[in-house]
């Protein structure tokens, strides 16, 4: 059984990727999980400089989901390369770095630093963080902005580039197309949905930042729809995520059109999810007689079922 998938020039041994912001820098999980057994890990979002992020409370649970506004606390690109990358290499992890920027130049500069470093497999461009004003979503909500960021980063790196799209738009497929035109090797989606939870007793938002991003199983049906729309719109691979909790959910995204999937919130609920996912996918492939996991991608049949009623 062949679980490997391709994202541009990068081959992943399997389609299961740890989502940005939900797996620290990977090193936190190195004793618990064999990092080399994951398709890849995406790091927490990194700017050029270190950031302390928002104050706590930074998350609140919602029905079948959670809101977060971490505010991209992070150690900055250079310290990541110095402090974290060596261990990740030792552990055999395939590392995708989630790159943030307040300006196009910053995206390019961070991408350049990472391209020069040893052990970065690909770049995920975070143009979709809803939680800080200068965190890139101004690019991710404009087709021109998306095109410009991707083009600028394309010029400074030969690493595969994967812009991460926001679901907070009318037509997400048009952002996938803009990314493709600007030279992206793949797109990933969804980032979180901009949302708000109010404590009615204090009449204040429940998280310190006020607004936050909604993730988890609550959003999965919307994310699956969006992944399917992007799959239909572009030729480059689509990396899908949003509420994947088990192998069935991962398969659902792949059948909708995802070449690979990312797991975020579920990692909090079940830090040992990875082997369960692989086992579940293998079992499904066996039952349905698939030999390569890529054969599954986009196989959903959306045509209407015939009906004697013609309804």
């Amino acid at each position, binding site marked *: 059984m062949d679980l490997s998938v391709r994202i541009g020039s990068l081959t992943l041994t399997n389609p299961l990727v740890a989502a940005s912001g939900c797996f620290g820098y990977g090193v936190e*999980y190195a004793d618990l999980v064999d990092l080399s057994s994951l398709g890849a890990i995406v790091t927490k979002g990194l700017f050029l400089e270190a950031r302390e992020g928002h104050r*706590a409370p930074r998350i609140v*649970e919602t*029905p079948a989901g959670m809101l*977060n506004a971490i505010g991209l606390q992070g150690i900055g690109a250079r310290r990541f390369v110095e402090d974290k990358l060596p261990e990740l290499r030792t552990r055999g992890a395939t590392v995708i770095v989630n790159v943030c920027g307040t300006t196009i130049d910053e995206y390019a500069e961070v991408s350049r630093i990472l391209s020069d470093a040893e052990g970065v497999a690909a770049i995920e461009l975070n143009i979709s963080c809803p939680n800080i004003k200068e965190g890139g979503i101004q690019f991710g909500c404009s087709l021109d902005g998306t095109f410009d960021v991707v083009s600028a980063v394309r010029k400074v790196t030969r690493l595969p580039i994967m812009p991460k799209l926001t679901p907070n738009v009318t037509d997400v497929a048009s952002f996938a197309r803009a990314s493709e035109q600007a030279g992206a090797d793949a797109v990933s989606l969804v980032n979180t949905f901009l949302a708000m939870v109010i404590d009615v007793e204090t009449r204040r938002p429940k998280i310190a930042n006020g607004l936050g991003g909604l993730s988890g*199983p609550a959003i999965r049906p919307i994310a699956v729809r969006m992944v399917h729309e992007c799959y239909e719109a572009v030729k480059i691979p689509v990396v899908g995520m949003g509420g994947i909790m088990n192998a069935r959910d991962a398969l659902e995204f792949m059948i909708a059109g995802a070449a690979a999937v990312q797991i975020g*919130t579920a990692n*909090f609920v079940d830090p040992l999810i990875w082997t369960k996912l692989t086992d579940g996918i293998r079992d499904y492939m066996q039952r349905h007689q698939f030999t390569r996991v890529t054969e599954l991608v986009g196989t959903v049949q959306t045509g209407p079922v015939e009906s004697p009623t013609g309804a």
Partner: protein
Amino acid sequence: MPFDVAADVMANTRLSADYNVLALSAPAIAAAATPGQFVMVKAASGDDPLLRRPFSVFEVLRDAAGAPAGLSLLNKRIGPSTELLYRAQPGDTVACFGPLGRPFTVADRSAQAWMVAGGVGLAPFATLADALGARSVSTTLFYGARSRAELFYLDFFRRLGVELVLTTEDGSLGERGRIIAPLDRRLAAHAPHAPLMVYACGPEGMLAACAKTAARYGRPCEVSVERIMGCGMGGCYSCVVPMRNDRGSFHHVRSCIAGPVLPADQILWE
């Protein structure tokens, strides 16, 4: 290294209308846990509530041969997850992941140990008292609650030879008022050169007061902080506490891996 266990409920002992002690079968976690560590627990089978919740390891339970067989949680019912833990019955299973976090520094015999607990903040002190007892450290528990009915396990601590200083808000047992008052008096009376370690767990306001009071008397103090935790593993950056740094500024540390036990004097209390 933490373990993930689908733990069978061994017993559920109701202590009051809101408190219970839930015994879970989890030998691997019980064998590895040290005082002040916690577990991430999920009782719901579906996606609501979604996330696990952090709970201190209350007791390490042992089988007839004395080997660790399980652990108990001291649970206070305040929302959906704690409600499920309050209602759990033998026959149910609870997902339990741990032990996690940085434990208390167990004082050695040269020092006295003062544990300061507010309400459910008692939870980490049963195992700490055990560990201190094993080192023959002279130990006092300062323990405050709303009323007599919410002061639990007093005999347990007495049996370990722990001195008890109790307060209740309604005066139904011990001194009326908050626990900081007797702590302050005792600190004032304590011989300046006799080594002493203060440990605290409870509501944020109590921890801040305790930290301030200990600092005023120049006593080292470790507090177990309570932040909303998404993962317990350092993965989500939800649980941060602002800590002073050398440059007169602060940085956010993840209390699930740098804590939950933190040196009180480095926390930037809000």
